[in-house]
């Protein structure tokens, strides 16, 4: 078709070409069947080094105490909370892709859902580290859960920080279940094609004995739908509750009703950017170009554009409300953000989150891989700084000018941040070599000719 208007009445295929089902098996399980090459080991060495740096910084913090961090009066929520919100945000893309896009019947999600779910799990694990270490004595974290302890005290159900405990642990568990349920049929495929005895035993156990029976498929699909239905409000609730950590406090710049939607949009924004970054590598290295097509990447870019604009709208609206409310301190806070001591962070945030993603209006840029990679990296930088600006600038200058101070992170803070990236990417690398990073079953189900033609229905 030469005209520029595509024919929307026709179902476009999500998988390019018409690969045979067996070739899909072969392609997706290839990384599991072959020995990793040198590049993989180099990548792993880099990420584990980062991880070790973070681990050493963490051990030092446990031994000497959190005084090694930049956190101090009045900025008691320094890097740990910034990093927590950042990583939880990254973790939002996976469930969004696997659950919300599933409910919306977006077939292009099938190629990337497994991978995005994996990223969700690792990102939430990374995020979980931070509140746990922020208490300074992580071995006492058990008190966060209501159990009959020797003080016969219960937790405080009125606190947003406790809601966080429930939201994040529920999110992790449900994402994990979702992921595992998706993996069961794939494990069965791997079980039936592997030649190694050890792998066969492992896959036999993890596949639970899946037989591809349609009497099972029927319930399986229903459960998948039910889980997607649960995960959708869940994913929205998680970042809403994270935003309550701020919004329920009475600090100027935090105490605002726009926070829940603003945070959720930001989370999806950063999550999609991170998925995009990693997918670009994966499809290249493993030759998945026809499964994770350029069309899919373009659709991801559209979501980034949308959520980026939402975030930009929220930034503008915060200023508007500060002016409109007539509250002096609120107005001061926002002027201070843009032109005060944290102006550098603020303008990094605005340019990376609002300006650069607008380039995605241009179709050419949406489909050029190097450009979208750069923009996605910038989005992640910008989103990290968004959390930095919100957390730090409000705390550093609140109602009492006598207690104002400037927050400076320490080397330990930066090492732990580096370590969190190491943690995340180490898990991701191990994941690509141990589990199918693309759902074999879901890809098969959307290959052309894989569904009956319904001639007599």
């Amino acid at each position, binding site marked *: 078709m030469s005209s520029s208007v595509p024919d929307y009445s026709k179902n476009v295929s999500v998988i390019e070409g018409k690969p045979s089902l067996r070739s899909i098996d072969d392609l997706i399980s290839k990384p599991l069947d072959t020995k990793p090459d040198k590049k993989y080991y180099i990548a792993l060495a880099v990420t584990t080094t980062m991880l070790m740096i973070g681990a050493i910084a963490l051990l030092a913090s446990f031994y000497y105490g959190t005084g090694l961090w930049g956190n101090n009066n009045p900025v008691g929520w320094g890097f740990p909370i910034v990093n927590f919100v950042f990583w939880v945000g990254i973790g939002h893309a996976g469930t969004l892709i696997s659950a919300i896009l599933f409910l919306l019947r977006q077939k292009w999600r099938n190629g990337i859902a497994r991978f995005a779910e994996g990223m969700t799990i690792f990102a939430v694990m990374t995020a979980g580290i931070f509140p746990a270490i922020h208490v300074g004595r992580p071995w006492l974290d058990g008190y966060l859960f209501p159990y009959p302890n020797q003080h016969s005290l219960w937790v405080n159900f009125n606190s947003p920080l*406790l809601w966080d405990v429930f939201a994040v642990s529920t999110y992790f568990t449900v994402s994990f279940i979702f992921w595992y349920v998706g993996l069961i049929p794939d494990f069965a495929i791997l079980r039936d094609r592997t030649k190694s005895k050890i792998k066969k035993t492992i896959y036999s156990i993890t596949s639970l*004995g899946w037989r591809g029976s349609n009497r099972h498929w029927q319930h399986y699909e229903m459960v998948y739908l039910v889980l997607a239905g649960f995960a959708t409000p869940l994913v929205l609730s998680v970042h809403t509750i994270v935003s309550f950590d701020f919004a329920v406090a009475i600090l100027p710049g935090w105490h605002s009703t726009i926070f829940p939607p603003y945070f959720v949009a930001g989370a999806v924004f950063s999550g999609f950017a991170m998925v995009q970054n990693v997918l670009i590598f994966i499809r290249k290295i493993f030759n998945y170009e026809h499964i994770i097509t350029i069309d899919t990447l373009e659709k991801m870019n559209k979501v980034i554009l949308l959520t980026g604009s939402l975030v930009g709208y929220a930034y503008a609206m915060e200023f508007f409300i500060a002016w409109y409310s007539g509250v002096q301190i609120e107005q001061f806070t926002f002027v201070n953000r843009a032109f005060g001591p944290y102006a550098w962070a603020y303008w990094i945030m605005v340019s990376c989150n609002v300006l650069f993603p607008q380039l995605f209006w241009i179709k050419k840029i949406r489909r050029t891989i190097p450009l979208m990679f750069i923009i996605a990296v910038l989005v992640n930088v910008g989103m990290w700084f968004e959390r930095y600006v919100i957390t730090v600038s409000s705390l550093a200058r609140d109602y009492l000018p006598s207690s104002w101070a400037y927050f400076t992170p320490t080397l330990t803070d930066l090492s732990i941040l580096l370590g969190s990236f190491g943690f995340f990417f180490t898990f991701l690398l191990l994941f690509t070599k141990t589990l199918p990073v693309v759902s074999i079953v879901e890809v098969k189900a959307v290959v052309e000719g894989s569904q009956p033609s319904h001639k007599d229905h």
Partner: protein
Amino acid sequence: MDEKILYGYTGLFDTPDEIIEAAEKTAAEGFQKYDVHTPYPVHGMDAAMKLKPSKLPYIALAVGLSALFVMFIFMYWMTTIDYPVIVGGKPFFSFPAWVPVLFEITVLSASIGTVVTMIAIFFKFPNISHPLHDTDFIRSVTSDKYGISIEAEDPKFDEEYVRSFLASIGAKSITAIYWDNDEVNFKNTVLQPKFITFLIVVALAVSGTTYFTLNKLMFMVPFNWMREQSKYIPQEVSTFFSDGFSMRVPVKGTVARGNMPYRYAGDPDAAGKELINPLAITEKNLELGKKKFDIYCSPCHGYFGKGDSRLRGQFPNPPSLHSEKVRNWSDGRIYAVLMDGQNVMPSYASQLNRNERWAVILYVRALQRSLNAKESDLK
């Protein structure tokens, strides 16, 4: 057992259209114990097999609602009955603040409940020794073929008939599947000594680690740094001060906040001369005085100060407060008794604050007046 037991017959198909047609025919033929195996869910197969809709959503609903209910009761009990703590001036039962946790628990339980029910009850998984496993049939249907299996337990099953039926609907590589002898002769090995030993080892390891963590590790560096801080606790010997006391005497003339220095210790007569009751005789003051007198004085002096102790001789009975002597004392003189004590009567300086002491004295005066009323009081 040497003779193999037949599980059923299987046949393979190449395209989704063929398998749908085959499933429709098998259902129409009246087979019940048959199944279709596909590498991915094939649209329209449920209708072709005439399967009833899955009941799992009801399970999800039931589990979710019960979890919501149980969690609500649990939270209500924790925050309003078992250990009520006021937080931020909110009522104990502050439902809006509970919504997030209730929501998360509902979703969590419903998800786990549904998936576990599906796997354990609907699928009867884990089951990795099904006769179909490790057959060419299963290897094909998890990859790129579509298969049908008809079980020997089907009421209409007959080897010859099923084989020809499968051929008639166009199935390829029709094979008979037998139970594995191992699977049939499977014996429960749970009570083997090896396994029991394993269990014991696990139990010892788990309880040992727990014991070590809770009773030893938590008292080691750095885990004990919260408990053992470098500070003096009361009565501890000091190596820093030459007198060896860690508690220091305040600088001379130090006055604690909210405390009025008492200058007449040991000199009741001076107190009697110089101290004046600062309180007015008001109903409020008298009420406070009565309350404190009933609490602190009445056990020995009796409710009316007559010296009728309730201590049944465990403590020397005090004299009556209605004596000539006490009636003629000034308020300041009684105050001195409360501050210093008198002979066996201990000091009440730390139990009553200044205001309360004077209020008690007002009340003692009222008691004295009640037994020795003046002519004028009758009017």
